[in-house]
C-alpha cells in the first residue's frame, strides 16, 4: 500500500521533472537512478559491495554506441543487445568474484573494472579511447530531448517496477536472507553463490541497460563511463540515498548529481565539500537521506518512535 503511494509520488515527480531541470539532466538523473537501484540489489539486498559497476555501465554504453553507429540497428534491438552483453559479462566476472567475500570481493570487482577500463582505453579503434566514442545518434523520432526524457522516464518506471518485483519475489527474499546470514542461508539449502551470482547478474543487466541509454543521451560514450571513479559514484549514490530502503537510491542519484552540480559552481575545490558531506553521512547519518527523512519525521510527529526503530 505504502509502496503504491510512493510510486504515485515518483510518477508525479517524473511529470514535473523537465520543468524543474533541463531535460537532459533530468534524464541523466533517471539513468543513474536505475544504476543506483540496480546497485542496491546487490549492496542493500544481498550485502555485496561491488566497486566495479562501471564495468557494466560502460560495456552497455559502448555496445549500444557501437551498434548504433556501425550497425544502424533499431533502438529496441540496440538496448536489448547492450543489456544482453553486459549480462553475459556479469555472469563471467561474477562467477569469479562471488567465490570471495568481503574485502576480496570489493577488490576483485574493482580490479576487473580497471582491466576493462584499460581495454576500452587502449582499444581506440573500437572505443575512441581517451577521446570517447562520439556520434551516437538517436532515432529521428527521439531526437528531441523532451521526447527522449519521456522515453527514459517510461523505461525508468518499467525498471523500477521490475526491480521491485525482483525484490518482492522469492529471489529477493533469499537475497535478503543471504545478506543477513550467509551460513544459515546455505544451511537451509540455498546455493549461496548461485544466488549471489544471480543478484550480481540482474544488477549488471539493469546497469548495462542504463549505460546504453546514457550513450544515447549525449550522443557520446566518454571514457569516464567505464572508469573506476564512476563505480565509486554509483556506490556513493546508493549509500547517500540510503541502501536500507528500496526507493532510497533514487533520492541518492538525484541528490548526488544535484550536489556535485551545485557545489562545483560555488567553489573550484568542490570535491572537498563532497568529501565532507560523505564523511558526515558516514559518521552521523548512516542510512542516508532516507534516514534523514525518517528522523525528521520522528521529530515532527514526536510519537513516531515506532517508525524510527531500526
Amino acid at each position, binding site marked *: 500500500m505504502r509502496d503504491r503511494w510512493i510510486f504515485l509520488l515518483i510518477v508525479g515527480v517524473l511529470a514535473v521533472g523537465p520543468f524543474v531541470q533541463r531535460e537532459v539532466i533530468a534524464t541523466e538523473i533517471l539513468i543513474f537512478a536505475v544504476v543506483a537501484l540496480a546497485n542496491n540489489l546487490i549492496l542493500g539486498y544481498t550485502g555485496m559491495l561491488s566497486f566495479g559497476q562501471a564495468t557494466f555501465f560502460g560495456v552497455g554504453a559502448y555496445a549500444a554506441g557501437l551498434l548504433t553507429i556501425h550497425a544502424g540497428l533499431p533502438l529496441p534491438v540496440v538496448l536489448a543487445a547492450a543489456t544482453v552483453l553486459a549480462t553475459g559479462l556479469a555472469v563471467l566476472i561474477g562467477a569469479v568474484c562471488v567465490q570471495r567475500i568481503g574485502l576480496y570481493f570489493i577488490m576483485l570487482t574493482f580490479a576487473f573494472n580497471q582491466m576493462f577500463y584499460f581495454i576500452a582505453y587502449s582499444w581506440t579503434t573500437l572505443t*575512441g579511447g581517451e577521446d570517447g566514442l562520439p556520434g551516437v545518434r538517436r532515432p529521428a523520432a527521439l531526437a528531441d530531448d523532451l521526447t527522449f526524457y519521456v522515453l527514459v522516464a517510461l523505461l525508468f518506471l518499467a525498471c523500477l517496477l521490475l526491480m521491485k518485483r525482483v525484490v518482492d519475489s522469492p529471489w529477493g527474499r533469499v537475497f535478503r536472507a543471504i545478506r543477513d546470514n550467509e551460513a544459515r542461508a546455505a544451511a537451509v539449502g540455498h546455493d549461496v553463490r548461485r544466488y549471489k551470482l544471480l543478484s550480481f547478474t540482474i544488477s549488471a543487466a539493469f546497469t548495462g541497460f542504463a549505460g546504453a541509454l546514457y550513450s544515447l543521451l549525449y550522443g557520446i560514450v566518454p571514457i*569516464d563511463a567505464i572508469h573506476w571513479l564512476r563505480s565509486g559514484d554509483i556506490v556513493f549514490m546508493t549509500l547517500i540515498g540510503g541502501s536500507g530502503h528500496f526507493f532510497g537510491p533514487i533520492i541518492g542519484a538525484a541528490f548526488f548529481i544535484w550536489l556535485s552540480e551545485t557545489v562545483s559552481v560555488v567553489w573550484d575545490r568542490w570535491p572537498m565539500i563532497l568529501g565532507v558531506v560523505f564523511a558526515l553521512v558516514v559518521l552521523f547519518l548512516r542510512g542516508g537521506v532516507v534516514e534523514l527523512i525518517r528522523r525528521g*519525521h520522528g521529530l515532527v510527529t514526536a510519537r513516531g518512535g515506532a517508525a524510527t526503530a531500526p
Partner: protein
Amino acid sequence: MTPIDRRTFLAGSTALGAAAMVGGVPAVARAAKTTTILGIFPLTGPYADTGPLMSKAAEMALKEVDYEVAGQKLRYVTRDSETKAGSATRRAEEAIASDDVKYIVGPWSSGVALAVGEVARKRKVVHWFSGGTEDISGKRCHRYAFQWAASPWTAMDVVLATFRKQNQKAKRLYLFIVDYAFGWSLQKYVETLAPGHGFEVVGVDRHPLGQREYSSYITKAAATNPDAIYMVNFGLDTVSAVRQLFNFGMTPKIPVILSWSAGVEELVQMSPEMRQNMLVGTNFYYTIDTPVAKKFVAEYRKQDSKGLPPGYAPGASYGCMRMVLAGMRAAKSTDVPAVIKATEGLKIDDLVGEQTVVARNHQTVRPYFVLKTTPKSEMKDDYDFGTIINSSAKEQPGELNECKDIGSL
C-alpha cells in the same frame, strides 16, 4: 528494510524537490541584452592545475572590454570540466539551459573538447577551443567550433626546421608519443615531415596518457643511440619524462624536444638542471613581442601571487576569448549566426601576431613558436625558461586537411 510511511517520504521528497529547484532554477528572466559566455575548464581532475589559470585569463579578456562589446552586455560563467567528457557534456548542457550560454571557451583536453563541441553543435552555440586535436578543424569540424591553436602540421614543421638549424649533424630522432588521438596525429606529421628536414625516426614509443614511469621507454630509446628525444605529449606526462631523462643522465647529453608544450606550466615543474639542452615548441610564450601579449602578460603577472607568467593554457583561453570578442565586434552583434559569419575569414593582429580564421575549416592560421631553454647560469629570474628563436605561421596544405564540409548553421 525498515518501513517508513508515506507521509514521511512525501515530506522529505518535497523538501528535496524544492531544494533541487532552488539550485536549478533557470535564469531565464535575465536582462535580454546580456550575452553569456561560458568558460569550461578543468578545475578538478587530471588537469586541475591549469583550469583556474585558464578561467582567470579568459575573464581578463572580458574585463578589458568592461564586459561589453558592440553595445551588448557580456556575462561570464564558469563550469568544471573535470577532464571527464561525461561531466563536461552535462555541465555544458546545464549551463546552456540555466544560464542561457551562447558562447563556450575551453576546456583543455581534446577528448573533452570534442564532446563539448558536440553540445555546441546541437545547441547552436559558438565553441572556441585551443588544443592538439586536429579533428576540431579536421574530420569532426562543424560550423560552431573554432580552433585557436596552430595546426599540428604547422607546429611539427617549424619544430623540425628549428632543430635542423640548431643542430646540423643530428639525424636520428626517437619519439615518445602519448597514446591517444592528439599524439597520433602529431606522430603522423613528424614521421612524414622528418625526412624532408633530413631526419630519420629510429624508434617510436607510445605511452598511455597519465604515464608516470618512463624508465622503460628511456632505456629502450638509449639503446638506439638517438640524436634527440622528440616528445609528443603534454603536461605531467612531459614533466615526468623529462625528469626521468635527467635521472638517467640523458639530459643534457642528448637534446630533448618538447614539440607541443604547455610552456610555462610545464617548465616551472622542472628544475633548471632538467631543462638543459631543450627545444620547446609552443602555441604561446610570455615573451611574445606583440602589444596585446605584453599588456596581457604584465596584467596577468600582477595578479599572480608569485608573479608567475602565463603559459600556453592561460594564453589560449585569453586568446580564444579575444577571438570571441573580435567576432562580435566584426559582426557588430552578439547574435550567434552573425558572429560565426563574421569570424569566418577574420584576420586580426592579436595576441600571438597575425591570426586568420580559415572559413573552410575554422582553423586559426597563426604563428607557432620554438624556444631554446636558458641555461641556469644565464637565467635572469626564476621564470626565465627560454628564448623564442623561431616561429612560423605556414598553413597546413589544404589536401592534408580532413575537414571536407564545414556544414551549415
